């Protein structure tokens, strides 16, 4: 692992197992986030984005969620081997997470100030009360909320303000890695713009590395440095944001995502959606998981799982491009 890599995931497999079925949520993904960079994890509902985040945080539902194999290396520590107590020290301090729905991620019977202070006190038990208060006020003003509102309850805040409180909670210990799981999906577009700009500014000021989970390619274009596109628990395409947006070689699924968005500039008569639906993760198709919906599906696609093809920083998981660079397979890193 390079010294400028903050998080590296290798061949992670996660399943959700119940008496009735086994859901293959993550099927061997590799991810890398460099220090100070933002990785966008893109995909539709059920692609495994949130499961990835929960695996990093070690917050998978007990008993049901299982990590089958893989490594999650964070700043030199193997997170999967940490004891619950050690993990608790990392969570909220070194890695923090912002959840999708600000309405349900705040405690309604605690003031927002108390909730922000919780993380500080937990990770700095020796800090004096005045010092804690000062840090609470400081983090509130960083997200653009008047520090005097720290004694209010979450119902007194609007949706956008609640999300700011949640972000204040996440950044108060100045984490090295911030995981944001669709932080603006529940917000109106003008409020989304405010929150996105604030996230971008804070990230640049604090030098935080970020994992941005989203389904919105517009947000990716604005915020992210690198992108990984997920489909059915796999990363089917990854690269820098320029690779994804400008390359002529795209995974058919990524292309389909772009074609599904109505354009603001051009007037298109019809959208070109991806046909069909996401496969049932408890019963994945043979070969390439995208093959039943793919316009370019070939015979080999239904039989053999594609190999990763890499061109510089751009990686694709698709048979269409497998002839391009068989000799340039991704190098194994130590």
């Amino acid at each position, binding site marked *: 692992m390079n010294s400028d890599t903050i998080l590296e995931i290798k061949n992670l497999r996660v399943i959700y197992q119940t008496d009735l079925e086994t859901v293959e949520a993550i099927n061997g993904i590799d991810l890398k986030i460099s220090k100070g960079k933002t990785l966008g994890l893109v995909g539709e509902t059920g692609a495994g984005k949130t499961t990835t985040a929960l695996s990093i945080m070690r917050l998978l539902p007990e008993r049901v969620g299982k990590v089958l194999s893989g490594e999650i290396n964070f700043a030199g520590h193997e997170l999967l081997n940490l004891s619950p107590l050690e993990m608790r020290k990392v969570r909220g301090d070194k890695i923090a997470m912002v959840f999708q729905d600000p309405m349900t991620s705040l405690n309604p019977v605690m003031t927002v100030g108390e909730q922000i202070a919780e993380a500080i006190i937990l990770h700095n038990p020796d800090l004096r009360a005045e010092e804690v208060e000062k840090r609470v006020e400081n983090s509130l003003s960083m997200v653009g909320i008047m520090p005097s509102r720290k004694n209010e309850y979450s119902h007194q805040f609007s949706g956008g303000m609640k999300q700011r409180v949640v972000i204040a909670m996440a950044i108060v210990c100045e984490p090295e890695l911030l995981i944001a799981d669709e932080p603006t999906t529940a917000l109106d577009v003008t409020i989304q713009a405010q929150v996105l700009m604030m996230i971008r500014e804070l990230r640049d000021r604090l030098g935080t590395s970020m994992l941005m989970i989203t389904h919105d390619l517009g947000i990716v274009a604005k915020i992210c440095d690198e992108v990984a596109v997920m489909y059915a628990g796999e990363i089917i395409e990854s690269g820098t944001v320029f690779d994804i947006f400008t390359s002529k070689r795209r995974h058919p699924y990524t292309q389909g995502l772009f074609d*599904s968005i109505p354009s603001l500039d051009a007037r298109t008569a019809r959208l070109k959606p991806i046909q069909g639906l996401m496969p049932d993760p408890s019963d994945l198709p043979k070969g390439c998981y995208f093959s039943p919906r793919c316009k370019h599906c070939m015979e080999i696609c239904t039989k053999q799982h594609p190999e990763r093809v890499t061109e510089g920083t751009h990686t694709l998981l698709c048979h269409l491009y497998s002839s391009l660079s068989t000799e340039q397979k991704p190098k194994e890193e130590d």
Partner: protein
Amino acid sequence: MDPTRIPLIETVNLRKLFKLNGGAHLHAVDGINMKIYSGETIGVVGESGCGKSTLGRTILRLIEPTSGQILYNGTDITKFKSNKMRELRKDLQIIFQDPYASIDPRKSVVEVIAEYMFIHNVYPTTAATYNRAAELMDLVGLARRCANSYPHELDGGRRQRIGIARALSLNPKFIVCDEPVSALDVSIQAQILNLLMDLAEELDLTYMFVTHDLSVVKHISNKIMVMYLGKCVEMASSDELFKNPLHPYTKALISAIPEPDISKRDEEFVLIKGEISSPINVKPGCRFVARCDYASANCTGCDIELKEVSTGHFVACILCN
């Protein structure tokens, strides 16, 4: 456009105020004048709480208006009694936002679709009704094998197709689409948008498309109305509105969309400060004044009228007077 043509739906100074405890009023829809001609799709955009859904429901009289008129083909339907209104409901339908909440979980797909036809006794026999329901399933792209499934067995996209089939079952002329795609993933959203556009052409439907998503509304509508706190602040054809937005709110709204275009990566959003203010006991004057960078003393005091600045382009802003 022919000035003598009668709009399919017209509202005259339509208002809906909700009474709150203590005598206060919430101004949900506050004096909306709009004309929807047959075959048009009009998009209504705005942020949550601007009254766009209430407007859609008030036009169908699912919510009774406080004052003003609703005209359907030139006839005032505001005072129609319930039996007359029931007859009219065949022509006026709605597709709801949440495909999870708007369908009876205890009815199978075909029962949900057939329900309205049974209520209105459209077909003499049960078999004929179910036949028609199966045809509607074909029309909206639902496999017939789903006919006896229950809604919880289907995904959001399919459920929204049930909602569409149900709305079409009485051969309506006008459909209010209340955020029909906002609960769906983008690839499914595109499928449903295409379906709605095909159906409009095939069945000669007129839509009022209520949404908060500007790129969707631009794609599907001929005309767009931008709402803010119960008022229409700007109305124009969709090309004109995006090319030449005049109201500061419309400008901010358009600029706030993150576009999936890497060349615009470093473009800053035009941020508007603050959040939508309270719609309770609103004072006369421009509703946007608290968030507007160009606000002056002239903006408050009396309501700003919608002015036609160029053909078909209406703006309610003193900057454009």
